């Protein structure tokens, strides 16, 4: 039984050995202990001895090639003719076309390489050979077909002679620049057929080390797992990071609070849990600027009217089926908004309701809205209370307050300067006071 000659693992951390030289040729008789070949590993060259006696045969690794450790590179057989069996451990290696041909020494001749044909191509797939081993071939004869960039190209031999070696198999991807055939001047005696995988390291003339068909062996580089893109943070970042503890960030997120409002309000960073109290008590957004900024003053306008017209109007409307005084107030107030429509909150007797007033709609079209609807305007009805006038400062939206008793109804508009310009504020209050003074005009 023939003895496998393997590329030995000799170094401390070695995957492959560089076969420097064979000290015996195929068919030579060898004795146990004879130096068979030289291997370079860990920067040292070592001589490897035969582990048994016999004849060196079935050499599958050529000098100058890198061979993975553990791979069978030859056999020591009982006869110089060799085992006749394929070397088991040589991956994808095919025996030479005839029994006498050995794979180690390639025939003399001109190399035919896998050409670079595509735009960005580092390998081509060999589709078919048009010639077989030993065939005569002319320079212009189509030698093989290659698929590259999704098209199949017929490639001429480029040289004349005889096919001495075919070093790739149909279906194989071969790095461009790698020798895939050898054309000899004379009809070859021992033509060689191999797969590109086995042949890859063979031609000493391989132009670049990259061309060696070894990468297949390598495990693919692990893909960097990318984190899925994060959804935008709920709170606005006013430009620049907010310095806040992990805990206060978590609590703010849980409560739906926006830490950037502390920044806007001018509170110094970093923020901690203790700052949450302040954040919770901050007035809603728009007013914040006014309150904190100080530069833009709040607006405070007061009108006085006779309440009787309004009282009469409400009574009349009740008889007409419009029995909700809140809706009536909302409708009258919305008329002063841009487009004469919007959401108006009416706060009376401690309860707040929000109404939506459609543009150009009749009084009856006013509808109560969802409680969460943020209003464009708040009407605070303090009639019947002892209060006669208010000055509460701006809130999240402009506020119209009705107050007073007896013969005078005071109507106060308060808002932040940023919410309404001075003339808009004057217009809003004038319109509202006018409608309260003469509600029936509104119907016209």
């Amino acid at each position, binding site marked *: 039984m023939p003895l496998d000659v393997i590329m030995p*693992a000799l170094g401390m951390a070695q995957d492959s050995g560089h076969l420097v030289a064979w000290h015996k040729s195929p068919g030579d008789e060898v004795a146990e202990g004879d130096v068979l070949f030289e291997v370079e590993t860990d920067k040292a060259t070592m001589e490897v001895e035969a582990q048994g006696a016999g004849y060196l045969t079935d050499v599958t690794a050529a000098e100058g090639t890198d061979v993975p*450790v553990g791979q069978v590179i030859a056999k020591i057989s009982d006869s110089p003719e060799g085992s006749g069996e394929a070397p088991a451990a040589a991956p994808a290696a095919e025996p030479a076309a005839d029994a006498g041909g050995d794979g180690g020494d390639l025939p003399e001749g001109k190399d035919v390489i896998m050409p670079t044909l595509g735009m960005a191509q580092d390998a081509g797939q060999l589709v078919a050979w048009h010639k077989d081993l030993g065939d005569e071939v002319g320079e212009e004869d189509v030698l093989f077909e290659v698929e590259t960039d999704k098209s199949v190209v017929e490639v001429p031999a480029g040289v004349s002679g005889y096919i001495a070696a075919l070093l790739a198999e149909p279906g194989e991807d071969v790095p461009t620049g790698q020798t895939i055939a050898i054309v000899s001047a004379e009809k070859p005696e021992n033509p060689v057929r191999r797969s590109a995988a086995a042949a890859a390291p063979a031609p000493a003339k391989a132009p670049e080390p990259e061309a060696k068909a070894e990468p297949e062996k390598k495990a693919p580089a692990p893909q960097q797992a990318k984190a899925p893109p994060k959804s935008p943070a709920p709170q606005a970042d006013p430009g620049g990071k907010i310095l806040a503890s992990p805990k206060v960030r978590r609590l703010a997120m849980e409560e739906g609070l926006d830490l950037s409002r502390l920044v806007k309000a001018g509170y110094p960073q970093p923020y901690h849990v203790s700052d949450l109290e302040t954040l919770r008590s901050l007035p809603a957004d728009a007013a914040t600027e006014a309150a904190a900024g100080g530069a833009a003053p709040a607006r405070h306008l007061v009108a006085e009217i006779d309440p009787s017209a309004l009282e009469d109007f409400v009574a009349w409307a009740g008889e007409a089926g419009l029995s909700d005084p809140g809706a009536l107030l909302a409708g009258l107030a919305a008329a002063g908004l841009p487009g004469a429509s919007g959401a108006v909150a009416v706060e009376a007797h401690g309860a707040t309701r929000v109404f939506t007033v459609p543009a150009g709609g009749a009084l009856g079209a006013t509808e109560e809205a969802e409680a969460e609807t943020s209003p464009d305007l708040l009407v605070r009805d303090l009639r019947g209370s002892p209060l006669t006038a208010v000055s509460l400062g701006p809130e999240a939206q402009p506020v119209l307050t009705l107050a007073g008793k007896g013969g005078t109804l005071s109507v106060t508009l308060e808002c932040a300067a940023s919410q309404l310009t001075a003339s808009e504020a004057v217009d809003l209050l004038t319109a509202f006071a006018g409608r309260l003074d003469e509600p029936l005009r509104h119907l016209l």
Partner: protein
Amino acid sequence: MAQSKTTKTTKTKTNSEDYLRMYRQMVRIRAFEDQANQLYLSAKMPGLTHMYSGQEAVAVGICEALNDDDRITSTHRGHGHCVAKGAEFKEMFCELLGKAEGYCRGKGGSMHIADQSHGNLGANAIVGGSMGIATGSALRAKLQGSKDVSVCFFGDGATAQGLWYEVMNMAALWKLPVIYACENNGYSEYTRTDEIAAGSILDRAKAFGIESFEVDGQDVLAVNELSAKLVERARKGEGPFFIELKTYRYHGHHVGDINRDYYRSKDEEAEWKKVRDPITNFGKWLESEGIASADELVAINDEVAADAEAAVKYALDAPYPPGEEVDMHVYKGIEHALA
């Protein structure tokens, strides 16, 4: 084949059965190493390994003088001690290949291989690292009044470690039942021993008042005879002892160390193999004494080789430990250290 138990009398071997077991044990070590060498070269074995071939008479001669209660500490070149102290091929090859059924469940490998149940306290990858352990084992024996003896195997290279002098001092002060067995194979890794050792190694032990002996480490009978005598004396509290065993390693420092002309000539290696091989020479003696015929020895060789081959095949097919093994046996009493 199941390895015969090493529960035997500690008398000097006087019958054929004992001789044949010594022969077989040496052949088993050689067969194990041949397979291990091949496994490494053919890249089937992870890591690094150091061959014991050539030194078989040392491990076998000493371990055949011990019983299961006696302890040994082994070295990075420890396969031979492991076999000689009664280990089985299957579990050894499994360990060598990092398989779950290995003696150390695949967590030790070549350099920590040991069949603990036969008193092997482990192979040690630190040169000289087990000298304290063997001495401590002997101290325990003395304190607890048990009669077991501890043998510390180490190489000539380890005589350069300071630890040895510390523990020899204490062993001598306290008359511990420990035998320091220096396997002088002539080379400290890639360096000739006479380049690293000043004076006489034997004299170093003598300086502590320790009775010291030199023996031909290629002669299993000589080793065994001396060991048996010293083990008996150590049991009686006459220890410690030191033995320098002159021997030879056939391979390089490790498996890949094959071109070693720069420190050792091929002629020298060939000479040792030809003239001083412990197995061949003992085989010849067995034949000349009429204890075994050449054919019977060949039969032993073949049987052992077949055993080794079968065990390799078994180990190659055996499963690796499951991933959950990784944090087991970090702490006793905690099943998974990282759970």
